[in-house]
């Protein structure tokens, strides 16, 4: 009877585990953080496929989401060919003139181009097309330290080692600022007794984000205990979930946030 109970428990545990695992969609590293932009679909022009991994290796989050003004939620920016041509959004960098890492960026949208130049459109407007990309994920990520899930890249370590050097200033667009002095770590108490507390590092986050990315829109209060949030809310895309599970490492990498040893 005792054995039967054990087998019964094991059966339910396996059933639950298989359900939970299938519910968590593990996205392949090369497409983790991919955004499909389909604002103004017109004849012959397919939606844009934007991979965060390439851009986050070259630019800070703050540069794009604050200085250039890309919204943090899908469809919030209303990017169009017209805004790109005026030098905003993608056109802020992709204007055919800006130089990053010794290379000129390609121009984004134009209303005056030859047939040969038309192939350039496919560099971004590539959904469902077999376009040969200039940067291929596996080759690109091979030289970077790996860690956990998501893109499987330890971006922090990559920056510390000088393997990536994200640009934080764009001439004519960004504002010259003094380096952020915030390096306070915050302990966020875990609700479950079985889970260790979160040791939140301002230093790590502020390096790429500045203040405005998170405060007050995502985290409206700093006073300890003023706002309470749960993993359910985070998994629903609120608080940490605005970035984590979308672009930053996913929530199933528990130990990367819940780092404080259990007392």
């Amino acid at each position, binding site marked *: 009877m005792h054995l039967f109970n054990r087998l019964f428990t094991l059966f339910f545990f396996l059933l639950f585990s298989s359900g939970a695992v299938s519910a968590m969609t593990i996205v392949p590293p090369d497409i983790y953080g991919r955004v499909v932009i389909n604002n103004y679909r017109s004849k012959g022009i397919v939606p844009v496929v934007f991979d965060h991994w390439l851009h986050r290796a070259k630019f800070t989050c703050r540069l794009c989401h604050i200085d*250039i003004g890309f919204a943090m939620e899908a469809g919030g920016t209303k990017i169009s060919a017209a805004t790109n041509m*005026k030098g905003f959004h993608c056109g802020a960098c992709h204007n055919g003139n800006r130089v990053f890492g010794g290379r000129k960026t390609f121009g984004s949208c134009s209303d005056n181009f030859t047939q040969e130049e038309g192939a350039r459109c496919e560099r971004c407007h590539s959904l469902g097309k077999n376009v040969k990309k200039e940067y291929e994920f596996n080759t690109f990520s091979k030289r970077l330290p790996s860690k956990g899930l998501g893109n499987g890249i330890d971006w922090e370590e990559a920056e510390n080692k000088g393997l990536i050097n994200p640009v934080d200033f764009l001439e004519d667009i960004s504002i010259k600022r003094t380096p952020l*002095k915030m390096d306070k770590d915050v302990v966020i108490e875990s609700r479950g007794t079985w889970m260790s507390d979160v040791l939140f590092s301002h230093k790590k986050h502020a390096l790429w984000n500045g*203040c*405005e990315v998170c405060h007050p829109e995502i985290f409206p209060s700093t006073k300890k205990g003023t706002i309470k949030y749960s993993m359910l809310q985070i998994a629903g895309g609120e608080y940490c979930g605005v970035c984590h599970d979308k672009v930053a490492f996913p929530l199933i990498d528990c130990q990367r946030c819940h780092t404080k040893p259990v007392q």
Partner: protein
Amino acid sequence: MKKLRTCLLCCAVAVIVCSGARDIEKKTFSWCGVVHAQDDWRNEFDDVCSRTQDAMIFSPDELRNLIARCDKLKPRVEKLDETQRKVFLKRLQLCRDLFLFVLESKEKK
């Protein structure tokens, strides 16, 4: 008389070209006064929003002053063309919200 008129016309054209037109390379032909007005809001915007990194070290009065500057700047940004307005209004709002957020958290303490 004809010579004088031609000379005056040339001078007038030269003055207009030298003082008024800028950014010919970018193919935007802007008049001097307009450029200054544009620079004016942009300078103020850059000055106010460059302080977000130091928001924590400002006193409540300094933060109130920065919020007031953001509010004063808003109507000027609202007059820009659609795309510029959209981008800079959002950026200005983010600066203002941050200053207000720091002010409120300081006042709570």
